[in-house]
C-alpha cells in the first residue's frame, strides 16, 4: 500500500530531526539535514504515485538540485570554519553571540 511509503518518510524525517538536535559534530548535522530532504523527496514521489501525476516527481527533482547546492556551500563553509577554529564542534561556531 502507498501509505507504508509515507509512514517510512515520516520515520526517516523524525530520525533526521533527532540527529540534528542530539549531535554536535557539524558533519553529522549536515548529513542529518540531507536525510530529512530525502524523506521529503520520498513523500513527494509517493504522492505522485498515489495521484498518478508527475508534478511530485518534478518537485523531487528540484529538491535534489537544492540539496546538491546546499551540500556544496555547506561543505565549503565547514572547511573555512575548520581552518579558522581547528574544531568540528557546532558549539564552538556560535560567532553571533557577541
Amino acid at each position, binding site marked *: 500500500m502507498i501509505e507504508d511509503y509515507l509512514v517510512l518518510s515520516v520515520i526517516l524525517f523524525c530520525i533526521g530531526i533527532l*540527529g540534528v538536535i542530539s549531535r554536535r559534530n557539524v558533519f553529522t548535522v549536515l548529513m542529518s539535514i540531507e*536525510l530529512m530532504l530525502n524523506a521529503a523527496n520520498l513523500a513527494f514521489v509517493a504522492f505522485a504515485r498515489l495521484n498518478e501525476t*508527475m508534478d511530485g516527481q*518534478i518537485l*523531487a527533482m528540484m529538491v535534489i538540485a537544492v540539496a546538491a547546492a546546499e551540500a556544496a556551500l555547506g561543505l565549503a563553509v565547514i572547511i573555512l570554519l575548520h581552518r579558522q577554529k581547528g574544531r568540528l564542534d557546532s558549539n564552538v561556531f556560535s560567532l553571533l553571540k557577541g
Partner: protein
Amino acid sequence: MYIDTLFSIFALIAIAGSLGLVLFRHPMQSALCLAVTMISLAGIYALLSAKLIFLLQLIVYAGAVMAMIVFIIMFLNLREKDLPEERERFTYLIGGAVLLIPVAWFMIKVMKSIPGVKNSIVGNGFGSIKELGQVLFTNWLVPFEIISLLLLVTLVGAVVLAGIRRESND
C-alpha cells in the same frame, strides 16, 4: 506480492542506515551509513515507478553529494581527538525522542487515513525522461529557471569563499 517484500527489505535497510547515521561517532561511518540509506531509497523510488528520480538519486545523491562529503571528511583527516566530546548526546536523543514520538504518531495516523491504493508498477511512460521533461518545460518553467539561478548563486558563492582565503594567505 514481490513489491511488498522488496519494499519491506528496502525500508528496513533505510531505517537501519539512518539510525547508524545518528548513532555512530565518527563522521566517516555516518557518511557510509547515509550512502546505504540513499541507495535503498533509490530502490524504493524504482518501486514507485519513478524512473528518472531513481536515476537521479543514484547519480546525484549517492554518487556526487556523498562522494563530496566523503572527500571532505577524508581531506580534513579527522582523528579521534579532533571529534567533539558529545557526552550529553544520549540525553538529547532520549529527550528528542520523547518530544517527537507523539508528533510522529499523529503524522502516521494522518498518513494511514489517506485512502490508499495498492502499489503496482505503472507503465505507459509514467516517470520516464520524456514525459517528465514535457511537464517540466511546460507547467514548471518558472521554478526551473529559479533553480538555475540558485545553482548560479551557489557557483559564485563557492568561488568567492575560495577566493577570500587565498587573498588572506598572501
